[in-house]
């Protein structure tokens, strides 16, 4: 049997000390997203969150597999399902959680909130509450990298709903004609709030639309962090080599509602199936078992990792709770940058 076809064989990526580190890092970041968001559920029920949150639970492999293929020097933009992207990109949890609680210590000083997280220190140029709106922003970051002659790339997250926004098509065309180093990464979770992707998108796979822009388009198993990582790594390599943009579509699942706490009056998906996802397609459980099966990590090691991440999340919640609210005058700062030539 050739390498890569034996599901029990340790994948090349996870062989050796570096591979072991990579595998654990993928697990650590997926756990950070999951446990951070589980903490937000608790905060929601405790009445401590000022607004609804849009959870990435179920989509961790897509988010993390893509981000791990980049570095913190690379750029990234996201969408209203906002927490997973900066966490996966490497942002610290405390300032993110503080932002969700509207605190002065939040990444955006309490002005962005759950849907508009950004941490420029790790290349996270911001999420967007308007569907599709940040797609050209990532494209522009790719342009800047190209003009400056750096080897940075821009990772652009969007969902199946945004795949129908005109600005995606404008952006992919611009990136293609200028060969910009952009990776368009679609987290296709199957639903735009309640509307099925199969009823709102003209093709079975969004990735096929890449052909219209002369760029590679691949579909990956969004519940398999290694599959996502491999496809994104290839797209990043292509971008860094000056060969232009790519489109990666991860087929994934949103385990919770569009927004946590949102009550949808008419059922649009089968709840029994949704409930079974935790047993069948949970990316963290799947990766856990695979790591054990490959002998890439031991039970004790994974338990210790989970405990460490839980402590990190607990500390983030504590930090957020103890942080001060912004003073009222903060509402009037950050609108304009100081400028050179103003009367």
């Amino acid at each position, binding site marked *: 049997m050739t390498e890569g076809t034996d599901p029990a064989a340790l994948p090349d990526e996870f062989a050796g000390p570096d591979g072991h580190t990579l595998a654990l890092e993928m697990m650590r970041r997926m756990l950070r997203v999951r446990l951070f968001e589980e903490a937000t559920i608790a905060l929601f029920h405790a009445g401590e969150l000022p607004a609804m949150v849009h959870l990435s639970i179920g989509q961790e492999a897509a988010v993390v597999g893509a981000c791990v293929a980049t570095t913190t020097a690379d750029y990234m933009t996201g969408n209203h399902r906002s927490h997973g992207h900066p966490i996966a990109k490497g942002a610290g949890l405390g300032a993110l959680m503080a932002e969700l609680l509207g605190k002065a210590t939040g990444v955006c000083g309490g002005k962005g909130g759950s849907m508009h997280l950004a941490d420029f220190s790790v290349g996270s140029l911001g999420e967007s509450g308007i569907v599709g709106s940040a797609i050209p922003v990532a494209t522009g970051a790719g342009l800047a990298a190209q003009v400056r002659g750096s080897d940075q790339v821009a990772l652009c997250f969007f969902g199946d709903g945004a795949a129908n926004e005109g600005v995606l098509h404008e952006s992919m*065309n611009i990136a293609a004609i200028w060969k910009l180093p952009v990776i368009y990464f679609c987290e296709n979770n199957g639903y735009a709030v309640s509307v099925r992707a199969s009823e709102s998108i003209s093709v079975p796979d969004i990735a096929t639309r890449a052909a219209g822009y002369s760029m590679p388009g691949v579909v990956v198993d969004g519940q398999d962090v290694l599959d996502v990582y491999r496809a994104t790594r290839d797209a990043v390599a292509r971008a860094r080599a000056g060969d232009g943009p790519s489109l990666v579509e991860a087929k994934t699942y949103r385990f919770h509602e569009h927004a946590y706490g949102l009550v949808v009056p008419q059922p649009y998906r089968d709840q029994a199936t949704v409930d079974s996802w935790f047993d069948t397609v949970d990316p963290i459980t799947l990766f856990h078992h695979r790591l054990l099966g490959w002998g890439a990590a031991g039970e004790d090691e994974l338990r210790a990792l989970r405990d460490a991440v839980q402590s990190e999340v607990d500390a983030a919640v504590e930090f957020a709770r103890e942080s001060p609210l912004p003073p009222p005058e903060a509402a009037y700062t*950050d609108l304009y940058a100081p400028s050179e030539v103003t009367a």
Partner: protein
Amino acid sequence: MTATTTRAKQLGFLQAINRAQTEEMTRDERVVLMGQDLRANVFGAAAGALETFGPSRVRDLPLAEAGSIGVAAGAAMAGLRPVVDLTVASFVFGAMDQFVSQLAKARYMFGGQATLPVVVRAALYYHGGTAGHHADRPYPMFMNVPGLKIILPSTAPDLLGLLKSAIRDDNPVLCFEDANLWGRKGRGPLPEAGDHLVPLGSAAVRQTGTDVTVIGIGLGCYLAVEAARALAGEGISVEVIDPRTLVPMDWPTILESVSRTGRCVVVDPANRTCSAASEIAARVAEDCFTDLRGPVVRVTTDDVHVPFSPALEKQIYPTQDKVIAAVRRALAG
């Protein structure tokens, strides 16, 4: 001095844009030009840019207004200083989400992490049968969006100086250029070599006077000056102020003048409702109430879309006669 030599030392609108862009691109390699038909210099303001600065910094955009503005926003966040030529101002509507959701809001929403030094140039292409889809004057809509700066020069030297300041500004600046000033009207004395900078937020007093303050925007400034000249024959002394920058507005200059004259007329080519004139009139009424001796009068474009037929079009815009009538009404109060 003969007419010929006077013309030779005058600067036109397109030359001003070209000189501003060239000087700032030379000064700062982060400045890049993007627009439709730039490399072929179809609109006349990009002569020599491609040859001087190369294809990496001078880019023809596809017809994708939203994508273009969003790309400029992202490029700015990642270290460039884009100047986007959107050509006709009516094309801003195709990019409205990007102007508002990204360009104007990113710095604020992200707590000051983002810096967006983007200049967007767009011509106000009204008069002359361009009709409903090309003749808009949409700058007041953007005055309603915090986070943007807006310049609207009425002379070529001001355009040069303001555009250079805008390119150096770390904020998004929208530069609206009144296309009626492209010809002889907008020409002005050629500034000496070297940096000619006009700071954003500084109005120009075009003419001093004592009886009434007329604030004229773009072409409206010329109508005000012409009206002032006609009224001078009747012994009416008109002060004419050109705001030059709409955001930030030079309120001290405007309010001081109106407090002194006690009367105010605003000439604004935008549609009447919620025009720049509306904001100026409201602010003057609030802050100069006790000094006012008559109503604040607006001369604006009537609230209709711009019709094509010459028989229909001209009547809807501000004219010299309308300004004169407005001054008389302000004086009669």
